[in-house]
Protein backbone atom coordinates (compact mmCIF):
# COMPACT_ATOMS: atom_id res chain seq x y z
CA UNK A 1 0.00 0.00 0.00
CA UNK A 2 2.70 2.48 0.98
CA UNK A 3 4.71 1.31 -2.04
CA UNK A 4 1.76 2.15 -4.25
CA UNK A 5 1.27 5.43 -2.46
CA UNK A 6 4.89 6.38 -3.02
CA UNK A 7 4.66 5.29 -6.64
CA UNK A 8 1.76 7.70 -7.19
CA UNK A 9 4.09 10.69 -7.18
CA UNK A 10 6.09 9.35 -10.05
CA UNK A 11 3.02 8.79 -12.24
CA UNK A 12 3.20 11.18 -15.18
CA UNK A 13 -0.41 12.37 -14.93
CA UNK A 14 -0.52 13.16 -11.24
CA UNK A 15 1.01 16.63 -11.55
CA UNK A 16 -1.60 17.51 -14.18
CA UNK A 17 -4.44 16.26 -11.97
CA UNK A 18 -3.13 18.31 -9.04
CA UNK A 19 -2.72 21.30 -11.37
CA UNK A 20 -6.30 20.93 -12.60
CA UNK A 21 -7.62 20.99 -9.02
CA UNK A 22 -5.50 24.04 -8.14
CA UNK A 23 -6.62 25.90 -11.23
CA UNK A 24 -10.25 25.05 -10.51
CA UNK A 25 -9.88 26.43 -6.97
CA UNK A 26 -8.18 29.58 -8.25
CA UNK A 27 -10.79 30.23 -10.92
CA UNK A 28 -13.68 29.31 -8.64
CA UNK A 29 -12.37 32.01 -6.33
CA UNK A 30 -11.64 34.60 -9.02
CA UNK A 31 -14.70 34.04 -11.21
CA UNK A 32 -17.15 33.22 -8.46
CA UNK A 33 -20.45 31.40 -8.85
CA UNK A 34 -20.50 31.84 -12.64
CA UNK A 35 -17.58 29.38 -12.87
CA UNK A 36 -18.88 26.99 -10.23
CA UNK A 37 -22.40 26.79 -11.63
CA UNK A 38 -23.63 24.00 -13.87
CA UNK A 39 -23.62 26.39 -16.81
CA UNK A 40 -20.05 27.42 -16.07
CA UNK A 41 -18.97 23.80 -15.71
CA UNK A 42 -20.67 22.91 -18.99
CA UNK A 43 -18.97 25.82 -20.74
CA UNK A 44 -15.43 24.76 -19.87
CA UNK A 45 -16.08 21.07 -20.43
CA UNK A 46 -17.59 21.89 -23.83
CA UNK A 47 -14.56 24.02 -24.64
CA UNK A 48 -12.19 21.28 -23.52
CA UNK A 49 -13.86 18.43 -25.41
CA UNK A 50 -12.68 19.02 -29.02
CA UNK A 51 -9.15 19.73 -27.89
CA UNK A 52 -9.36 16.76 -25.55
CA UNK A 53 -10.23 14.43 -28.44
CA UNK A 54 -7.29 15.73 -30.47
CA UNK A 55 -5.02 15.36 -27.45
CA UNK A 56 -5.92 11.66 -27.07
CA UNK A 57 -4.50 10.86 -30.51
CA UNK A 58 -1.56 13.23 -30.12
CA UNK A 59 -0.73 11.78 -26.69
CA UNK A 60 -0.52 8.22 -28.03
CA UNK A 61 1.60 9.45 -30.92
CA UNK A 62 3.94 11.46 -28.70
CA UNK A 63 4.35 8.52 -26.32
CA UNK A 64 5.28 6.60 -29.47
CA UNK A 65 8.00 9.17 -30.09
CA UNK A 66 6.47 11.21 -32.91
CA UNK A 67 4.71 14.52 -33.50
CA UNK A 68 1.73 15.33 -35.64
CA UNK A 69 1.51 19.01 -36.51
CA UNK A 70 -1.13 18.32 -39.15
CA UNK A 71 -4.05 17.49 -36.84
CA UNK A 72 -5.41 21.05 -36.99
CA UNK A 73 -5.39 20.92 -40.77
CA UNK A 74 -7.04 17.49 -40.70
CA UNK A 75 -9.87 19.04 -38.65
CA UNK A 76 -10.28 21.47 -41.54
CA UNK A 77 -10.13 18.70 -44.14
CA UNK A 78 -12.68 16.65 -42.25
CA UNK A 79 -15.34 19.35 -41.90
CA UNK A 80 -14.88 20.55 -45.46
CA UNK A 81 -14.98 17.01 -46.79
CA UNK A 82 -18.36 16.40 -45.12
CA UNK A 83 -19.72 19.65 -46.57
CA UNK A 84 -18.39 19.16 -50.09
CA UNK A 85 -19.58 15.56 -50.27
CA UNK A 86 -23.07 16.57 -49.19
CA UNK A 87 -23.22 19.45 -51.69
CA UNK A 88 -21.23 18.43 -54.77
CA UNK A 89 -22.23 14.77 -55.22
CA UNK A 90 -25.18 15.59 -52.91
CA UNK A 91 -24.68 12.55 -50.71
CA UNK A 92 -26.59 12.26 -47.50
CA UNK A 93 -24.80 12.91 -44.22
CA UNK A 94 -23.78 9.37 -43.21
CA UNK A 95 -22.07 8.30 -46.45
CA UNK A 96 -20.25 11.64 -46.42
CA UNK A 97 -19.07 10.99 -42.87
CA UNK A 98 -17.94 7.48 -43.76
CA UNK A 99 -15.99 8.73 -46.78
CA UNK A 100 -14.46 11.50 -44.66
CA UNK A 101 -13.22 8.97 -42.12
CA UNK A 102 -11.58 6.99 -44.93
CA UNK A 103 -9.93 10.15 -46.32
CA UNK A 104 -8.56 11.11 -42.91
CA UNK A 105 -7.26 7.62 -42.22
CA UNK A 106 -5.52 7.74 -45.57
CA UNK A 107 -3.91 11.06 -44.65
CA UNK A 108 -2.69 9.58 -41.38
CA UNK A 109 -1.39 6.55 -43.24
CA UNK A 110 0.55 8.74 -45.66
CA UNK A 111 1.96 10.85 -42.81
CA UNK A 112 3.14 7.70 -41.08
CA UNK A 113 4.46 6.04 -44.20
CA UNK A 114 6.46 9.15 -45.12
CA UNK A 115 7.97 9.32 -41.64
CA UNK A 116 8.97 5.65 -41.41
CA UNK A 117 10.20 5.45 -45.02
CA UNK A 118 12.22 8.67 -45.13
CA UNK A 119 13.36 8.51 -41.49
CA UNK A 120 12.84 12.29 -41.45
CA UNK A 121 11.69 13.86 -38.17
CA UNK A 122 7.91 13.73 -38.01
CA UNK A 123 8.01 17.35 -36.89
CA UNK A 124 9.16 18.34 -40.38
CA UNK A 125 7.03 15.87 -42.31
CA UNK A 126 3.80 16.88 -40.59
CA UNK A 127 4.73 20.58 -40.70
CA UNK A 128 4.74 20.11 -44.46
CA UNK A 129 1.40 18.27 -44.31
CA UNK A 130 -0.02 21.04 -42.15
CA UNK A 131 0.42 23.50 -45.02
CA UNK A 132 -0.33 21.10 -47.85
CA UNK A 133 -3.65 19.99 -46.30
CA UNK A 134 -4.70 23.50 -45.33
CA UNK A 135 -3.93 24.76 -48.81
CA UNK A 136 -5.77 21.86 -50.42
CA UNK A 137 -8.80 22.41 -48.19
CA UNK A 138 -9.03 26.08 -49.13
CA UNK A 139 -8.38 25.35 -52.80
CA UNK A 140 -10.99 22.57 -52.90
CA UNK A 141 -13.61 24.71 -51.16
CA UNK A 142 -12.97 27.64 -53.52
CA UNK A 143 -12.69 25.40 -56.56
CA UNK A 144 -16.04 23.71 -56.02
CA UNK A 145 -18.08 26.46 -54.40
CA UNK A 146 -16.14 29.77 -54.75
CA UNK A 147 -16.34 30.11 -51.00
CA UNK A 148 -14.30 28.92 -48.00
CA UNK A 149 -17.24 28.79 -45.60
CA UNK A 150 -20.10 26.46 -46.32
CA UNK A 151 -23.38 26.02 -44.45
CA UNK A 152 -26.68 24.22 -44.70
CA UNK A 153 -25.73 20.77 -43.47
CA UNK A 154 -29.00 20.70 -41.54
CA UNK A 155 -30.92 20.52 -44.83
CA UNK A 156 -29.18 17.30 -45.84
CA UNK A 157 -30.78 13.89 -45.39
CA UNK A 158 -29.56 12.10 -42.28
CA UNK A 159 -28.68 15.27 -40.42
CA UNK A 160 -31.10 14.78 -37.53
CA UNK A 161 -29.57 11.54 -36.40
CA UNK A 162 -26.05 12.89 -36.97
CA UNK A 163 -26.95 15.83 -34.75
CA UNK A 164 -27.98 13.46 -31.97
CA UNK A 165 -24.73 11.50 -32.29
CA UNK A 166 -22.26 14.35 -32.81
CA UNK A 167 -23.89 17.70 -32.11
CA UNK A 168 -26.46 17.48 -29.35
CA UNK A 169 -26.33 18.69 -25.77
CA UNK A 170 -28.43 16.03 -24.05
CA UNK A 171 -28.09 17.00 -20.38
CA UNK A 172 -27.71 20.33 -18.61
CA UNK A 173 -25.87 22.04 -21.44
CA UNK A 174 -23.23 19.30 -21.58
CA UNK A 175 -22.46 18.47 -25.19
CA UNK A 176 -22.24 14.94 -26.54
CA UNK A 177 -18.68 15.78 -27.59
CA UNK A 178 -17.72 15.42 -23.91
CA UNK A 179 -18.84 11.79 -24.06
CA UNK A 180 -16.79 11.28 -27.23
CA UNK A 181 -13.79 12.83 -25.49
CA UNK A 182 -14.01 10.66 -22.40
CA UNK A 183 -14.89 7.59 -24.46
CA UNK A 184 -11.83 8.06 -26.70
CA UNK A 185 -9.65 8.65 -23.66
CA UNK A 186 -10.95 5.52 -21.94
CA UNK A 187 -10.35 3.32 -24.99
CA UNK A 188 -6.89 4.82 -25.57
CA UNK A 189 -5.93 4.36 -21.93
CA UNK A 190 -7.01 0.76 -22.04
CA UNK A 191 -5.06 0.15 -25.24
CA UNK A 192 -1.97 1.85 -23.83
CA UNK A 193 -1.91 0.13 -20.45
CA UNK A 194 -3.55 -3.22 -21.07
CA UNK A 195 -2.91 -4.40 -24.61
CA UNK A 196 0.22 -5.54 -26.45
CA UNK A 197 -0.17 -2.53 -28.76
CA UNK A 198 0.23 -0.26 -25.75
CA UNK A 199 3.41 -2.03 -24.75
CA UNK A 200 4.76 -1.60 -28.27
CA UNK A 201 3.82 2.10 -28.32
CA UNK A 202 5.77 2.72 -25.11
CA UNK A 203 8.74 0.74 -26.40
CA UNK A 204 8.78 2.32 -29.84
CA UNK A 205 8.85 5.76 -28.25
CA UNK A 206 11.36 4.84 -25.56
CA UNK A 207 13.98 2.82 -27.40
CA UNK A 208 13.01 1.80 -30.94
CA UNK A 209 16.15 -0.31 -31.44
CA UNK A 210 15.44 -2.39 -28.35
CA UNK A 211 11.84 -2.83 -29.52
CA UNK A 212 13.00 -3.94 -32.95
CA UNK A 213 15.47 -6.38 -31.41
CA UNK A 214 12.66 -8.30 -29.72
CA UNK A 215 10.47 -8.33 -32.77
CA UNK A 216 8.19 -5.32 -32.36
CA UNK A 217 7.14 -4.03 -35.77
CA UNK A 218 8.20 -0.47 -35.20
CA UNK A 219 7.09 0.94 -38.55
CA UNK A 220 3.65 -0.65 -38.27
CA UNK A 221 3.11 0.75 -34.79
CA UNK A 222 4.13 4.24 -35.90
CA UNK A 223 1.90 4.24 -38.96
CA UNK A 224 -0.97 3.04 -36.77
CA UNK A 225 -0.37 5.94 -34.41
CA UNK A 226 -0.44 8.52 -37.20
CA UNK A 227 -3.72 6.99 -38.39
CA UNK A 228 -5.08 7.22 -34.85
CA UNK A 229 -4.20 10.88 -34.46
CA UNK A 230 -5.73 11.59 -37.88
CA UNK A 231 -8.87 9.71 -36.85
CA UNK A 232 -9.21 11.82 -33.70
CA UNK A 233 -8.82 14.99 -35.76
CA UNK A 234 -11.39 13.65 -38.20
CA UNK A 235 -13.87 13.13 -35.37
CA UNK A 236 -13.39 16.72 -34.19
CA UNK A 237 -13.99 18.02 -37.72
CA UNK A 238 -17.18 15.96 -38.02
CA UNK A 239 -18.43 17.08 -34.60
CA UNK A 240 -17.88 20.72 -35.47
CA UNK A 241 -19.40 20.47 -38.94
CA UNK A 242 -22.52 18.86 -37.51
CA UNK A 243 -22.77 21.24 -34.59
CA UNK A 244 -22.27 24.40 -36.67
CA UNK A 245 -24.19 22.87 -39.62
CA UNK A 246 -21.32 23.86 -41.87
CA UNK A 247 -17.58 24.08 -42.32
CA UNK A 248 -14.88 26.69 -42.55
CA UNK A 249 -11.72 25.89 -44.48
CA UNK A 250 -9.71 27.53 -41.70
CA UNK A 251 -11.24 25.46 -38.91
CA UNK A 252 -8.72 23.80 -36.59
CA UNK A 253 -5.91 26.30 -37.03
CA UNK A 254 -3.43 26.32 -34.13
CA UNK A 255 -5.13 23.26 -32.63
CA UNK A 256 -2.03 21.17 -33.32
CA UNK A 257 -0.10 23.36 -30.89
CA UNK A 258 -2.84 23.42 -28.30
CA UNK A 259 -3.01 19.64 -28.47
CA UNK A 260 0.73 19.29 -27.93
CA UNK A 261 0.49 21.71 -24.99
CA UNK A 262 -2.35 19.71 -23.44
CA UNK A 263 -0.34 16.51 -23.84
CA UNK A 264 2.80 18.03 -22.32
CA UNK A 265 0.85 19.54 -19.43
CA UNK A 266 -0.48 16.03 -18.99
CA UNK A 267 3.00 14.76 -18.23
CA UNK A 268 4.03 13.18 -21.52
CA UNK A 269 7.68 13.59 -22.48
CA UNK A 270 8.52 15.42 -25.70
CA UNK A 271 11.15 12.76 -26.32
CA UNK A 272 8.59 9.92 -26.24
CA UNK A 273 8.35 6.67 -24.34
CA UNK A 274 6.70 8.07 -21.25
CA UNK A 275 3.27 9.54 -20.64
CA UNK A 276 -0.41 8.81 -20.31
CA UNK A 277 -3.67 9.59 -22.02
CA UNK A 278 -5.30 10.42 -18.69
CA UNK A 279 -2.72 13.17 -18.25
CA UNK A 280 -3.72 14.61 -21.61
CA UNK A 281 -7.35 14.60 -20.45
CA UNK A 282 -6.35 16.78 -17.52
CA UNK A 283 -4.25 18.92 -19.86
CA UNK A 284 -7.26 19.59 -22.07
CA UNK A 285 -9.42 20.18 -19.00
CA UNK A 286 -6.96 22.80 -17.74
CA UNK A 287 -7.00 24.39 -21.18
CA UNK A 288 -10.82 24.59 -21.17
CA UNK A 289 -11.04 25.88 -17.59
CA UNK A 290 -8.49 28.62 -18.16
CA UNK A 291 -9.93 29.67 -21.50
CA UNK A 292 -13.49 30.03 -20.14
CA UNK A 293 -12.54 30.91 -16.58
CA UNK A 294 -10.46 33.98 -17.26
CA UNK A 295 -13.31 35.46 -19.26
CA UNK A 296 -15.74 34.74 -16.41
CA UNK A 297 -13.26 36.28 -13.99
CA UNK A 298 -13.36 39.47 -16.04
CA UNK A 299 -9.77 39.16 -17.25
CA UNK A 300 -9.12 40.18 -20.83
CA UNK A 301 -9.12 37.07 -23.07
CA UNK A 302 -5.82 38.24 -24.57
CA UNK A 303 -4.13 36.94 -21.46
CA UNK A 304 -5.15 33.41 -22.27
CA UNK A 305 -2.16 32.77 -24.52
CA UNK A 306 0.20 34.15 -21.88
CA UNK A 307 -1.22 31.70 -19.35
CA UNK A 308 -0.98 28.87 -21.84
CA UNK A 309 2.68 29.48 -22.63
CA UNK A 310 3.49 29.88 -18.95
CA UNK A 311 1.78 26.60 -18.07
CA UNK A 312 3.65 24.84 -20.84
CA UNK A 313 7.00 25.94 -19.43
CA UNK A 314 5.97 25.00 -15.92
CA UNK A 315 4.79 21.60 -17.11
CA UNK A 316 8.09 20.87 -18.82
CA UNK A 317 9.95 21.58 -15.57
CA UNK A 318 7.58 19.39 -13.55
CA UNK A 319 7.87 16.58 -16.09
CA UNK A 320 11.63 16.64 -15.86
CA UNK A 321 11.44 16.39 -12.10
CA UNK A 322 8.96 13.49 -12.22
CA UNK A 323 11.16 11.68 -14.71
CA UNK A 324 14.24 11.94 -12.52
CA UNK A 325 12.28 10.53 -9.59
CA UNK A 326 10.82 7.71 -11.66
CA UNK A 327 14.27 6.66 -12.81
CA UNK A 328 15.81 6.84 -9.39
CA UNK A 329 13.42 4.32 -7.84
CA UNK A 330 9.80 3.32 -7.60
Amino acid sequence: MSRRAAGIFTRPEVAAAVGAVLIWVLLAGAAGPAFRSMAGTASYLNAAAPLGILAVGVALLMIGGEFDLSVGSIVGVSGMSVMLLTTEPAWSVWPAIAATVVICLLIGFLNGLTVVRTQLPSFIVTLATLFILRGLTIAAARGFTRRTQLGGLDDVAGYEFARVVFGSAPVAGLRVSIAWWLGCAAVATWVLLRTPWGNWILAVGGQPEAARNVGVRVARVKVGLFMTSALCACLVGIIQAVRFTGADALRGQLQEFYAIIAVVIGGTLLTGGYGTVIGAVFGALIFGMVRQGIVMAGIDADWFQVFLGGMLLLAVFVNRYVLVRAQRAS
Partner: protein
Amino acid sequence: MNGAALPRLEARDVSMRFGGVVALEDVSLAARAGEVTCLLGDNGAGKSTLIKILVGVHAPTRGACLLDGEPVRFRSPMEALSRGIATVYQDLAMVPLMSVWRNFFLGAEPTSGRGPLRRIDVERCREETRAELAAMGIELRDPDQVVGSLSGGERQAVAIARALHFGARVLILDEPTAALGVRQSERVLQHVRTAADRGVAVIFVTHTPHHAHPVGDHFVVLRRGRVVADEPREALPVEELAALMAGE
Protein backbone atom coordinates in the same frame (compact mmCIF):
# COMPACT_ATOMS: atom_id res chain seq x y z
CA MET B 1 31.19 -30.74 -21.20
CA ASN B 2 30.25 -32.87 -24.12
CA GLY B 3 32.75 -31.97 -26.78
CA ALA B 4 31.75 -34.79 -29.06
CA ALA B 5 28.16 -33.60 -29.41
CA LEU B 6 27.00 -31.81 -32.54
CA PRO B 7 27.50 -28.05 -32.13
CA ARG B 8 24.24 -26.23 -31.81
CA LEU B 9 25.33 -23.13 -33.70
CA GLU B 10 28.40 -23.04 -35.85
CA ALA B 11 30.24 -20.67 -38.17
CA ARG B 12 32.39 -22.56 -40.65
CA ASP B 13 35.26 -20.91 -42.56
CA VAL B 14 33.54 -17.57 -42.61
CA SER B 15 35.11 -14.59 -44.36
CA MET B 16 33.73 -11.10 -44.45
CA ARG B 17 34.81 -8.07 -46.47
CA PHE B 18 33.45 -4.56 -46.16
CA GLY B 19 34.64 -3.01 -49.40
CA GLY B 20 38.41 -3.29 -49.08
CA VAL B 21 38.40 -4.03 -45.35
CA VAL B 22 38.86 -7.68 -44.46
CA ALA B 23 36.91 -8.01 -41.20
CA LEU B 24 37.05 -11.83 -41.00
CA GLU B 25 39.20 -14.42 -42.77
CA ASP B 26 38.33 -18.13 -42.58
CA VAL B 27 36.89 -17.95 -39.08
CA SER B 28 35.21 -20.96 -37.48
CA LEU B 29 33.40 -21.12 -34.17
CA ALA B 30 31.21 -23.79 -32.65
CA ALA B 31 28.80 -23.24 -29.75
CA ARG B 32 27.69 -26.37 -27.90
CA ALA B 33 24.72 -26.92 -25.64
CA GLY B 34 25.55 -26.45 -21.97
CA GLU B 35 28.82 -24.69 -22.75
CA VAL B 36 30.01 -21.13 -22.60
CA THR B 37 31.98 -20.44 -25.75
CA CYS B 38 34.01 -17.28 -25.28
CA LEU B 39 34.84 -15.13 -28.26
CA LEU B 40 37.78 -12.91 -27.42
CA GLY B 41 39.73 -10.25 -29.23
CA ASP B 42 40.86 -6.67 -29.08
CA ASN B 43 38.70 -3.84 -30.40
CA GLY B 44 38.25 -4.19 -34.13
CA ALA B 45 39.22 -7.87 -34.13
CA GLY B 46 35.91 -8.80 -35.78
CA LYS B 47 33.94 -10.19 -32.84
CA SER B 48 30.75 -8.20 -33.46
CA THR B 49 30.99 -8.86 -37.18
CA LEU B 50 31.04 -12.62 -36.55
CA ILE B 51 28.03 -12.33 -34.24
CA LYS B 52 26.16 -10.29 -36.80
CA ILE B 53 26.82 -12.94 -39.42
CA LEU B 54 25.52 -15.66 -37.07
CA VAL B 55 22.23 -13.85 -36.45
CA GLY B 56 21.63 -12.67 -40.01
CA VAL B 57 22.53 -8.98 -39.86
CA HIS B 58 25.24 -9.58 -42.48
CA ALA B 59 25.57 -12.32 -45.07
CA PRO B 60 29.16 -13.62 -45.09
CA THR B 61 31.31 -13.07 -48.18
CA ARG B 62 32.33 -16.72 -47.91
CA GLY B 63 31.58 -19.60 -45.57
CA ALA B 64 28.43 -20.86 -43.87
CA CYS B 65 26.49 -20.93 -40.64
CA LEU B 66 24.96 -24.13 -39.32
CA LEU B 67 22.21 -24.64 -36.79
CA ASP B 68 22.11 -28.18 -35.39
CA GLY B 69 24.34 -29.21 -38.26
CA GLU B 70 22.01 -27.82 -40.93
CA PRO B 71 23.18 -24.90 -43.09
CA VAL B 72 21.12 -21.80 -42.36
CA ARG B 73 21.12 -18.29 -43.74
CA PHE B 74 19.00 -15.97 -41.59
CA ARG B 75 17.71 -12.85 -43.27
CA SER B 76 17.34 -10.95 -40.00
CA PRO B 77 17.98 -11.25 -36.26
CA MET B 78 14.21 -11.75 -35.96
CA GLU B 79 14.39 -14.91 -38.01
CA ALA B 80 17.30 -16.09 -35.86
CA LEU B 81 15.26 -15.32 -32.74
CA SER B 82 12.33 -17.32 -34.07
CA ARG B 83 14.74 -20.27 -34.37
CA GLY B 84 15.80 -19.91 -30.74
CA ILE B 85 18.89 -17.73 -31.12
CA ALA B 86 18.59 -14.81 -28.72
CA THR B 87 21.02 -11.91 -28.68
CA VAL B 88 21.53 -9.52 -25.79
CA TYR B 89 22.90 -6.23 -27.01
CA GLN B 90 25.04 -4.10 -24.76
CA ASP B 91 22.96 -0.93 -24.49
CA LEU B 92 20.02 -1.72 -26.71
CA ALA B 93 18.56 -4.60 -24.75
CA MET B 94 15.98 -2.68 -22.71
CA VAL B 95 13.63 0.29 -22.81
CA PRO B 96 14.76 2.30 -19.76
CA LEU B 97 11.48 4.10 -19.10
CA MET B 98 9.34 0.98 -19.19
CA SER B 99 8.69 -1.23 -16.21
CA VAL B 100 10.62 -4.45 -15.72
CA TRP B 101 7.65 -6.67 -16.54
CA ARG B 102 6.79 -4.68 -19.67
CA ASN B 103 10.36 -5.06 -20.87
CA PHE B 104 10.44 -8.70 -19.95
CA PHE B 105 7.45 -9.57 -22.10
CA LEU B 106 7.94 -6.97 -24.83
CA GLY B 107 7.05 -8.41 -28.18
CA ALA B 108 5.66 -11.63 -26.67
CA GLU B 109 2.98 -10.40 -24.27
CA PRO B 110 0.79 -13.16 -22.83
CA THR B 111 -2.85 -12.23 -23.29
CA SER B 112 -6.26 -13.24 -22.06
CA GLY B 113 -9.68 -12.61 -23.57
CA ARG B 114 -10.52 -12.56 -27.26
CA GLY B 115 -11.17 -10.20 -30.11
CA PRO B 116 -11.19 -6.54 -29.15
CA LEU B 117 -11.06 -7.48 -25.47
CA ARG B 118 -7.76 -9.29 -25.83
CA ARG B 119 -5.52 -7.84 -23.15
CA ILE B 120 -2.19 -8.40 -21.48
CA ASP B 121 -2.38 -10.77 -18.55
CA VAL B 122 -0.68 -8.26 -16.27
CA GLU B 123 -0.74 -10.32 -13.09
CA ARG B 124 0.85 -13.24 -14.85
CA CYS B 125 3.52 -10.94 -16.32
CA ARG B 126 4.36 -9.55 -12.89
CA GLU B 127 4.47 -12.96 -11.26
CA GLU B 128 6.56 -14.63 -13.94
CA THR B 129 8.99 -11.72 -14.10
CA ARG B 130 9.48 -11.89 -10.37
CA ALA B 131 9.88 -15.67 -10.43
CA GLU B 132 12.34 -15.73 -13.34
CA LEU B 133 14.52 -13.07 -11.78
CA ALA B 134 14.38 -14.79 -8.39
CA ALA B 135 15.63 -17.93 -10.15
CA MET B 136 18.68 -15.91 -11.17
CA GLY B 137 19.19 -14.66 -7.65
CA ILE B 138 17.71 -11.21 -8.16
CA GLU B 139 15.02 -10.10 -5.74
CA LEU B 140 12.96 -7.47 -7.52
CA ARG B 141 11.46 -4.88 -5.23
CA ASP B 142 8.61 -4.29 -7.63
CA PRO B 143 8.06 -5.58 -11.18
CA ASP B 144 6.48 -2.18 -11.91
CA GLN B 145 9.69 -0.27 -11.30
CA VAL B 146 11.22 1.13 -14.47
CA VAL B 147 14.24 -0.61 -15.92
CA GLY B 148 16.11 2.70 -15.78
CA SER B 149 16.17 2.35 -11.99
CA LEU B 150 18.04 -0.98 -12.20
CA SER B 151 21.82 -1.26 -12.17
CA GLY B 152 23.61 -2.15 -15.39
CA GLY B 153 24.21 -5.67 -14.15
CA GLU B 154 20.56 -6.15 -13.20
CA ARG B 155 19.54 -5.00 -16.66
CA GLN B 156 21.76 -7.62 -18.25
CA ALA B 157 20.23 -10.16 -15.87
CA VAL B 158 16.71 -9.21 -16.97
CA ALA B 159 17.75 -9.58 -20.60
CA ILE B 160 19.32 -12.99 -19.95
CA ALA B 161 16.35 -14.16 -17.88
CA ARG B 162 14.03 -13.08 -20.66
CA ALA B 163 15.96 -15.04 -23.27
CA LEU B 164 15.88 -18.15 -21.07
CA HIS B 165 12.19 -17.73 -20.30
CA PHE B 166 11.34 -17.66 -23.98
CA GLY B 167 13.25 -20.86 -24.53
CA ALA B 168 16.42 -19.62 -26.19
CA ARG B 169 18.61 -22.53 -27.31
CA VAL B 170 21.49 -20.26 -28.16
CA LEU B 171 22.26 -17.10 -26.20
CA ILE B 172 24.66 -14.55 -27.63
CA LEU B 173 26.01 -11.80 -25.37
CA ASP B 174 28.06 -9.08 -27.04
CA GLU B 175 30.33 -7.53 -24.40
CA PRO B 176 27.76 -7.65 -21.58
CA THR B 177 30.40 -6.70 -19.00
CA ALA B 178 32.11 -3.94 -20.97
CA ALA B 179 30.39 -1.06 -19.22
CA LEU B 180 30.21 -2.61 -15.75
CA GLY B 181 32.26 -2.40 -12.57
CA VAL B 182 33.95 -5.39 -10.95
CA ARG B 183 31.10 -6.53 -8.70
CA GLN B 184 28.41 -6.07 -11.32
CA SER B 185 30.53 -7.95 -13.84
CA GLU B 186 30.83 -10.86 -11.44
CA ARG B 187 27.07 -11.06 -11.13
CA VAL B 188 26.64 -11.06 -14.88
CA LEU B 189 29.29 -13.79 -15.24
CA GLN B 190 27.28 -15.90 -12.81
CA HIS B 191 24.19 -15.41 -14.97
CA VAL B 192 26.17 -16.42 -18.05
CA ARG B 193 27.16 -19.62 -16.27
CA THR B 194 23.58 -20.20 -15.09
CA ALA B 195 22.34 -19.99 -18.66
CA ALA B 196 24.82 -22.62 -19.83
CA ASP B 197 24.06 -24.86 -16.88
CA ARG B 198 20.44 -24.81 -17.98
CA GLY B 199 21.51 -26.37 -21.26
CA VAL B 200 21.75 -23.28 -23.44
CA ALA B 201 24.61 -22.85 -25.88
CA VAL B 202 26.12 -19.52 -24.80
CA ILE B 203 28.40 -17.36 -26.91
CA PHE B 204 30.05 -14.81 -24.64
CA VAL B 205 31.87 -11.99 -26.38
CA THR B 206 34.43 -10.03 -24.38
CA HIS B 207 37.82 -8.42 -24.65
CA THR B 208 38.68 -9.16 -21.00
CA PRO B 209 40.40 -12.56 -20.49
CA HIS B 210 39.76 -12.35 -16.76
CA HIS B 211 36.03 -12.22 -17.42
CA ALA B 212 36.13 -15.05 -19.91
CA HIS B 213 38.34 -17.51 -18.12
CA PRO B 214 36.29 -18.24 -14.96
CA VAL B 215 33.08 -18.99 -16.89
CA GLY B 216 34.32 -20.23 -20.26
CA ASP B 217 34.40 -23.83 -21.44
CA HIS B 218 35.96 -23.04 -24.75
CA PHE B 219 37.87 -20.03 -26.09
CA VAL B 220 38.16 -18.64 -29.57
CA VAL B 221 40.58 -15.74 -29.88
CA LEU B 222 40.41 -13.42 -32.87
CA ARG B 223 43.14 -11.08 -33.98
CA ARG B 224 42.61 -8.81 -36.95
CA GLY B 225 39.92 -11.07 -38.34
CA ARG B 226 41.77 -14.37 -37.94
CA VAL B 227 41.46 -17.12 -35.35
CA VAL B 228 44.72 -17.32 -33.39
CA ALA B 229 43.48 -19.81 -30.79
CA ASP B 230 40.58 -22.24 -30.52
CA GLU B 231 41.05 -24.22 -27.35
CA PRO B 232 39.11 -25.84 -24.51
CA ARG B 233 39.59 -24.41 -21.09
CA GLU B 234 41.94 -27.19 -19.91
CA ALA B 235 44.41 -26.35 -22.65
CA LEU B 236 44.53 -22.64 -22.00
CA PRO B 237 45.48 -21.21 -18.59
CA VAL B 238 44.42 -17.62 -18.00
CA GLU B 239 47.98 -16.29 -18.37
CA GLU B 240 48.26 -17.84 -21.79
CA LEU B 241 44.86 -16.48 -22.77
CA ALA B 242 45.91 -13.00 -21.70
CA ALA B 243 49.19 -13.34 -23.59
CA LEU B 244 47.31 -14.40 -26.73
CA MET B 245 45.06 -11.41 -26.41
CA ALA B 246 48.03 -9.11 -26.05
CA GLY B 247 49.40 -10.50 -29.28
CA GLU B 248 52.44 -12.26 -27.87
